[in-house]
């Protein structure tokens, strides 16, 4: 199994069978297609990038070309079973607002983002340089990731926003890491609902 597909599977495991899903920043729609195929889910992806929108249409995945920075007023409260934010949070100016919106629209939310506290990153910082890794492949002055946070940071943010964490773990090379995820995983995954 490839790293991408095992990551999909780890995230898909958090999504109930037949769920109505909204995928914020759905990329080329492959996760949604996977959820439709493997877990009989329905739903929509939100994407801003033209080539990703095209890829979604090509896949036959419902996609709405919207800018997440403009907000999600188009969606009613609790209108989805699960709202996904997979590798999206780090690109958002209004990250906290979007987290609150995720909780408003979805009965549950799943957020995944690069964990800045992963040990190779810590090592790099100790050596005095911003990390450039497979998971964070950009130079500090030229990165689309305008937010960097850690697994632990998200726990604090979730608490502040009254989110009840149902499950959380790290993902490293497609493998779930539950022991010391903050240091041992490049990706942080949180499954939550609003309290």
């Amino acid at each position: 199994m490839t790293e991408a597909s095992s990551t999909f599977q780890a995230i898909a495991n958090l999504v109930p069978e037949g769920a109505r899903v909204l995928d914020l920043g759905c990329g080329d729609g492959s996760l949604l297609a996977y959820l439709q195929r493997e877990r009989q889910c329905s739903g929509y992806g939100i994407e801003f990038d033209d080539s990703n929108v095209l890829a979604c249409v090509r896949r036959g995945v419902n996609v709405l070309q919207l800018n997440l920075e403009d907000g999600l007023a188009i969606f009613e409260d609790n209108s989805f079973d699960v709202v996904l934010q997979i590798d999206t949070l780090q690109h958002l100016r209004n990250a906290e607002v979007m987290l609150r919106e995720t909780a408003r629209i979805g009965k549950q939310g799943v957020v995944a983002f690069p964990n800045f506290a992963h040990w190779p990153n810590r090592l790099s910082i100790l050596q005095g340089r911003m990390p450039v890794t497979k998971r964070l492949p950009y130079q500090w002055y030229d990165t689309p990731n305008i937010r960097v946070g850690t697994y632990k940071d998200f726990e604090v943010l979730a608490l502040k926003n009254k989110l009840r964490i149902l499950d959380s773990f790290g993902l490293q090379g497609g493998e779930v890491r539950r022991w010391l995820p903050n240091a041992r995983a490049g990706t942080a995954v949180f499954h939550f609902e609003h309290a």
Partner: protein
Amino acid sequence: MSFVATPQSMHFPEALPLQSGASIRDYDLAYETYGQLNADRSNAILVCHALNASHHVAGYYEGQAKSEGWWDNMIGPGKPVDTNQFFVIGVNNLGSCFGSTGPMHMNPDGGHVYGADFPVVTVEDWVDAQALLLDRLGITQLAAVLGGSLGGMQALSWTLQYPDRMRHAVVVASAPCLSAENIAFNEVARRAIVTDPDFHGGHFYREGVIPKRGLRIARMIGHITYLSDDVMNQKFGRQLREGLDLKYSTQDVEFQIESYLRYQGDKFSDYFDANTYLLITRALDYFDPAKPFGGDLTQALAGAKARFMLVSFSTDWRFSPARSREIVKALLDNRRTVSYAEIDAPHGHDAFLLDDARYMGVMRSYFDNMARELTAGQTSAQEAV
């Protein structure tokens, strides 16, 4: 150049009841078809036209080099709406001046041309007439209804009037209804026409004249609203027609944009019918499927069953992306299958007729999927046998 198109016409003797309470009988609908209807009659796509277009959607007429259909870049063999896969039907609306019965035709009740007596027609009336044409062509269910601008409104109306007769609705650069500003532009255009001394209350045919001045101004106003400020600046800027010198005249054409608008206006007044312009702009004004539901578009679209693809263009201020998003929202509220592309194109409303790789790519992919569905459907039908 693509293929040769042949206009056809269908006569309908029976009276068609119109939304206004009036009716029209003994009318003709002009139409064209491209491609082949498949064995189970499931691959038909109806294309609804915008304000000044017609049934001549694609191809060209024999021996007429400049007779290309208005959506020829979109529809044809190997094009985004591939006529090797689909049976495409272009139909001209009632009240038009391009072949279907309109104000220039004889009124069967009066023995003279309709003129101003042609009944007011609505988007819903057009859709009803189109459905009758499909009956006669033996098509029970369309693969899709496709339309841009006013054509998009017809596609939307189709999903409500005949939800079971279509599988997909492709709505491009459209809106659930006109805004006050849109209606205002239409009204200025209409006043330009009806206040032309040659208008004669709409019975100008009897006088042997044409209210060309009014039509020219109507078209100039329309044209301004179809373009974006950026494109106008890029194309014309403040460029003067004759060198650098100002003529200090208030009558002459001085700026290039004036020259362009006058040219467009003149061209239009040579071929478009004044009463048709009034009728079509009124149909635009009236369209408002949410009206019977107290303005609630979500309730209005509850009956729609089609799968939707919507496209808007960022610089279209006549039918802005926000208006398309209203439709998207109403469909989301009803948990309908919908995709929406917001194309960042500079051309304003006219973008829906132009080539843009992103726009064409999305359309091609959507229709390709539709074609695959058809093939899959036929396969499963064969397996069942």
